[in-house]
């Protein structure tokens, strides 16, 4: 059999085989459930599956022959040609056979998360790359929802832990507090029968100490009631009086730290609906934190406490310091339990503040001041006008 006679026949069968292969490929591309794109070594699209057309929103005709980077979002969009060149020069695999999550870009410009795996095909000296793409939009939504839920649960479980702790501690601490108050009140009674200047001074001091033991008891009682019932005992209270009392308590020792304190209280704002003890606790906490942060360094030590009216029936209270400020990454989580910037401290103070303020129907947040320092703000419901008429 002549050798050359076989060539056309072979060519014919080769062509037929090629056509059959092409047809198989096309049928695969039409039916494969994953998005699939084949590119050459220059990044030009050779063919793509029907799913890929739908996923990216382009008809085949608008993609074939064009650079595949049109389907990518930054930074891969700009870098893809360089990736290809580097791979062909170094053969160092960064995605081929590994797979990773990248961002795709649809025809309408919108982007979406996708998982990309790349296979390599070499014939003669030409390279082809096949990309398999899975759309992760739904999966990521589910995951982010899961993460959100998880963080809520974490917050709740930490808060429950806090509540449990408050409840158990309450009884344990109330016992010694009762003993302290009893001994002090008894001593005060004995001192009442004694005469002289010293007895008078002692009597007063012992009486004040007893009052503080009772105050500690009141704080614990309210915290526990509040954690257990999520409610606090709100009354119509004078805001300036609240602030005055709380700052008196919190500013003990502030002079030694050379802190200058200024008050800017809106005279038009008076009555709020608040649990006096709890809101004082919030204020004392914020003021003490401010003083503490300023005593760590810095020349300017100025504390500014102000009130303003916001909206119809809310009042905003702010406590600003001139300290070194708070790192942004900490700031975002500052009101979560067990987050603290202090070396000593459990990170419960601000978490309790947040819980108290939110239970009062208000909000608490923190901002950085432009000239350095931090400003904490919280809102309370005003008790004038609206609230009164609500009742009458």
């Amino acid at each position, binding site marked *: 059999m002549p050798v050359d006679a076989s060539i056309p026949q072979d060519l014919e069968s080769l062509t037929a085989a090629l056509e059959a292969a092409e047809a198989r490929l096309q049928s695969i591309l039409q039916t494969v459930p994953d998005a699939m794109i084949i590119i050459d070594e220059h990044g030009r699209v050779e063919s793509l599956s029907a799913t890929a057309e739908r996923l990216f929103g382009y008809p085949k005709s608008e993609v074939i022959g064009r650079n595949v980077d049109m389907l990518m979002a930054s930074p891969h969009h700009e870098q893809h040609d360089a990736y290809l060149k580097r791979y062909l020069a170094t053969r160092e695999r960064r995605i081929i056979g590994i797979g990773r999550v990248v961002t795709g870009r649809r025809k309408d410009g919108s982007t979406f998360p996708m998982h990309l795996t790349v296979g390599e095909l070499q014939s003669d000296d030409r390279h082809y790359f096949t990309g398999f793409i899975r759309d992760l939009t739904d999966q990521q939504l589910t995951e982010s929802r899961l993460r959100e839920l998880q963080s809520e649960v974490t917050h709740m479980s930490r808060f429950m832990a806090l509540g449990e702790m408050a409840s158990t501690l*309450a*009884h344990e601490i*109330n016992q010694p507090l*009762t003993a302290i108050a*009893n001994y002090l009140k*008894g001593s005060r*009674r004995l001192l009442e029968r004694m005469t002289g200047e010293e007895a008078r001074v002692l009597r007063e001091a012992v009486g004040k100490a007893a009052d503080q033991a009772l105050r500690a008891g009141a704080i614990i009682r309210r915290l*526990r009631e509040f954690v257990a019932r999520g409610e606090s005992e709100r009354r119509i209270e004078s805001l300036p009086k609240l602030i005055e009392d709380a700052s008196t308590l919190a500013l003990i020792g502030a002079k030694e730290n050379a802190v200058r304190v200024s008050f800017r209280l809106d005279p038009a704002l008076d009555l709020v609906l608040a649990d006096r003890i709890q809101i004082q606790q919030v204020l004392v906490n914020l003021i003490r934190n401010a003083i503490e942060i300023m005593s760590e360094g810095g020349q300017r030590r100025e504390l500014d406490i102000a009130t303003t009216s916001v909206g119809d029936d809310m009042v905003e209270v702010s406590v600003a310091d001139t300290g070194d400020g708070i790192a942004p990454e900490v700031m975002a989580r500052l009101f979560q339990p067990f987050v603290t910037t202090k070396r000593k401290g459990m990170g419960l103070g601000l978490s309790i503040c947040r819980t108290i303020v939110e239970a009062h129907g208000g909000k608490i947040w923190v901002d950085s001041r432009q000239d350095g320092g931090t400003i904490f703000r919280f809102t309370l419901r005003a008790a004038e006008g609206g609230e009164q008429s609500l009742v009458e």
Partner: protein
Amino acid sequence: MSSSQIVHVIDDDIAVRQSLAFLLSTAGYAVRVHESAVAFLEALPGAQDGCVVTDIRMPGMDGLELQRQLRTLKVGLPVIVITGHGDIALAVQAMKAGAVDFIEKPFDDDVLLGAIGSALDRHVHDAERESRTAEVGRRAQSLSERERDVLAGLVAGKPNKIIAHELGISSRTVEVYRANVMTKMRADSLSELVRMAILLDSAL
């Protein structure tokens, strides 16, 4: 006061017992301390007239059970209950079991001594109870109908949200009513409000 009258203090916490004995003795009372309700009942045959100041949650026999025992034994000693757990349900139970007063720890000495004073002097006790009931009644008169509804819910231990739901108003409005009730009744705490309500209830 009569020297034959003794204040019996029952608390499982030694520091609380001893500090109470100290406080009461500075106020001129004869005091006997007991570490448990059972120990007190054992000492009871020799016990003189007086009154009982007891913790409510104790290992073994608790304060409520002690009250029941005293009633069974027909011992007429007035009982003042003190507790570190300020819970409303417990306060209501203790008062219904016949306690003359319910006081949360830690307490102001004047509150406790006032309660003991009126418990020891039956005549004073009755007279005081009467005048106090009258005073609380006057305060209750000043409550509006809605405020009374909210008071009833609070005494039943219901949270604001439930009260709001039952009355068909917002819980925000309940809060305002609640604040008004506390102010008008001059109650410092929910448990004090409950005490007043029980006082009124038993007077009816």
